[in-house]
């Protein structure tokens, strides 16, 4: 305890630096606990724990192909992560990112298959169309919340299920390839496909788009009045109202924007990785976005890192599953555990209180000594 005090006597040790350290410590511990838990699960379940753990932990960097596919996984979830970031920043629990991602792929497929355009422009039009349609759809839960006071969360989930069926309907009635074994669209024309950045790597131009979006969304949220208003509303809606912000406009806008991003991500995913539309259920990318937004503390800056972590975990689990037959869905358990520990205000709180107490007592003494 005494040692602690001496250490705290360092000048510049303020309440905030203390807080910052705790949040870093908490993130680190949450992630470590998640990894430790994965290892425990593997030890219990796997027939060959050593091999499983090896693939989980270093599989993604064992060879170049694995490493490439890590980034293939990274691209879509970075964008859905940003999308959810924007919506959650306004304190709107709109979970339509999941549906938007799927429906974005549907819209992009539709445009890809029904319009003829030159190669450079075709995918751009597909992606923009997807973003526009999904953005408009994202306004539905937003307006239900703002105009009627209904729960945007429940509404967005219902919308997810609805657009899943709607999308499947559109694909199977208008774009179905009768020769394909299962329900799938016809093959995309070459002009609609996204440019591959590294040959045979599955890393498409979406990588650049994702990186650019991280920067754009970050600047949007932290350096423009629109982003500022979104965050202000999210932090304290009443205060925002008192300073003249139009709550309805901001919340609806944030959800339209978020849904549009998620829709665009779905469009790029299907045009970049597949030769035809072949999803039969929701893909989970939207939910990953939710995890990432929370992991990143709703700050776009941290989304790439958080996404890399999740992609790594996923890829590791995939490889493990391929090599040892272990199932990959345990990743969602790990995800849940990390989220809980990360969000837990009380986690480490006793340690924190002790430090805060020591700091404040010390400041008090200093003040009294100075004041005489």
């Amino acid at each position, binding site marked *: 305890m005494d040692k602690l005090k001496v250490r705290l006597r360092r000048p510049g040790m*303020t*309440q*905030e630096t203390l*807080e910052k350290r705790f949040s870093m410590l908490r993130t680190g511990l949450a992630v470590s606990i998640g990894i430790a838990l994965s290892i425990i699960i593997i030890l219990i379940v796997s027939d060959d724990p050593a091999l499983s753990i090896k693939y989980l932990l270093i599989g993604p960097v064992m060879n170049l192909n694995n490493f490439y596919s890590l980034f293939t996984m990274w691209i879509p979830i970075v964008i859905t992560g940003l999308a959810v970031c924007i919506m959650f920043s306004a304190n709107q629990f709109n979970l339509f990112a999941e549906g938007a991602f799927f429906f974005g792929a549907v819209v992009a497929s539709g445009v890809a298959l029904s319009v003829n355009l030159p190669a450079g422009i075709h995918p751009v039009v597909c992606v923009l169309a997807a973003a526009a349609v999904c953005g408009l759809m994202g306004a539905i839960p937003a307006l239900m919340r703002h105009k009627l006071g209904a729960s945007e969360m429940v509404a967005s989930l219902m919308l997810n299920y609805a657009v899943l069926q709607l999308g499947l309907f559109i694909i199977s009635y208008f774009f179905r390839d009768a020769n394909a074994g299962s329900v799938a669209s016809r093959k995309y024309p070459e002009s609609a496909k996204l440019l591959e950045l590294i040959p045979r790597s599955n890393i498409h131009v979406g990588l650049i788009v994702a990186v650019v979006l991280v920067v754009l969304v970050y*600047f949007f949220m932290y*350096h*423009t*009045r629109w982003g*500022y*208003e979104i*965050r*202000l509303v999210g*932090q*304290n809606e*009443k*205060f*925002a*109202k*008192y*300073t*003249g*912000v*139009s709550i309805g406009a901001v919340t609806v806008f944030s959800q339209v924007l978020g849904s549009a991003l998620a829709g665009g991500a779905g469009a790029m995913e299907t045009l970049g990785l597949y030769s035809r539309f072949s999803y039969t259920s929701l893909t989970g990318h939207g939910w990953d976005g939710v995890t990432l937004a929370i992991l990143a503390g709703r700050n776009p800056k941290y989304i790439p890192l958080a996404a890399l972590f999740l992609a790594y975990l996923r890829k590791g689990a995939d490889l493990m599953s391929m090599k040892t037959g272990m199932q990959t869905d345990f990743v969602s358990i790990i995800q849940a555990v990390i989220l809980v520990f990360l969000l837990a205000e009380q986690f480490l709180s006793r340690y924190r*209180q002790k430090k*805060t*107490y020591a*700091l*404040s*007592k010390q*400041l*008090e003494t200093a003040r009294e000594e100075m004041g005489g």
Partner: protein
Amino acid sequence: MSEILRVEHLMKVYGNGVMANKDINFTAEKGEIHAICGENGAGKSTLMKMLYGIEQPSEGDIYVKGEKVHLTSSAKAIEHSIGMVHQHFMLVPSLTVAENVVLGVEPKRGIKFDAKEAVRLTEEIAQKYNLSVPAKEKVENISVGLKQRVEIIKALLKGAEILILDEPTTVLTPQETEELFVELKHLRDEGHTILFISHKLYEVKKLCDRVTVMRGGRMIATKNVSEVSEADISRMMVGRDVVEVIEKDRAVPGDTVLKLSGVTCVNSSGRKLLDNVSLNVRKGVILGLAGVEGNGQHELLEAIAGIEKLTAGTIQFHGRDITNDSIRARREAGVSHIPEDRMAEGTAKKFSITNNILAGRQRNPRYTGKVLFKMKEIRAEADTLVREYQVKCSGREQEIGMLSGGNIQKVVVAREFSAGPEVILVDQPTRGIDIGAATFIRNRLVQLRDEGKAILVNSADLNEVLGLSDSLAVFHNGRITGYFEDTSALTEEELGLYMLGIKKQTAEEIEEKFHG
């Protein structure tokens, strides 16, 4: 008399690092009414929370009837015969009086809740202590005075011998206060101990046997009430001689900036918050809004700010009708607003000081380009204001929630005062902040008046309203019952009569003053 409660070396540091209580020592006797006095922020509430198990002391001990106790929860406090009547009632509105009274010690028949027995128990206590209440009525339908009685019955039913009352008269009418005092004296004579928390000294003089004074989280002294005067207590509370005079010259009234005619507001449950209010506000004048809390002063400010929508009447700003303008339009036209509750309406707790200052200016071309913010300008402004308003902080990037109440309020005030306003709406400018910050803010207001701003001030602190105001409007039941062009001749007694609606000026009289 015998000692029933003793507190030794009590100290409390909150999670955010604020030290609210330092080395508190005092004792209470059986069968006395013991006042705890202190300014806002003196640490009274913290002390009471520790005595009722809501907060745990960081250091120190509490003894009840000579036995050391650990009050880790309210349940523990109740076990040790301590009861509390909170300033904000702790009642469940949709439940009946009887259900509220027995909550926590519900009578049962089999697995069923015994509603009849609950009513019987309530009426039994009510009769015994002469505190009649309608046991079967829902709490949401009864008056404030009755609610307080329900609170006292609640505590008594649970066997409270030590009863803590936290500023119980704030919400009461004078008649209800009288009744409460009779009831409390009766309880004392029955052998109960009452801790009466207040900063209304005449009430302390009238009701209490002993008084303990707190200041800045510390214990100052315990005295017999009969041996000290109100002025003595007051001196101990503020640590210097009583009434603080706000120094200012005579106002030089300018043109009318704001003209309200027939302003009426109705809340969602249909109650008239403002009822046909007409007012003129002129440049260079501080117009005080006086009244018992909840009589329309606060709503008037919110109506002018554009937060409360009018159901009738008009508001003119420089002769232009702004009745239907948005909040933003009004702010841009030159209306600033210090809201009543700085944490709920005036700041975003987790935002930095800079971001809090930016609120309301994010669209101002001085701080934003076509797309990006001009960060340099924003930071410079924040630095200037922090310096100018002497905000104690580690820098402009500090989270505002980490600051003390006074410094948070200074940031709010700095933001609003520096937005280039013509009209400043000020709601509870110094509630719950330290004297230094309060004085600073009051002096600033006078300075702004001298610069020709029109200022409206609402404050629960009567001294503050009287001290600051050049003109005064008194509110009762959403109406103006008195308007005084010049407050210097107005006595507190007379003001009181208007506040209670006993004395009233007619609409014609008030009207005349605006045009005369």
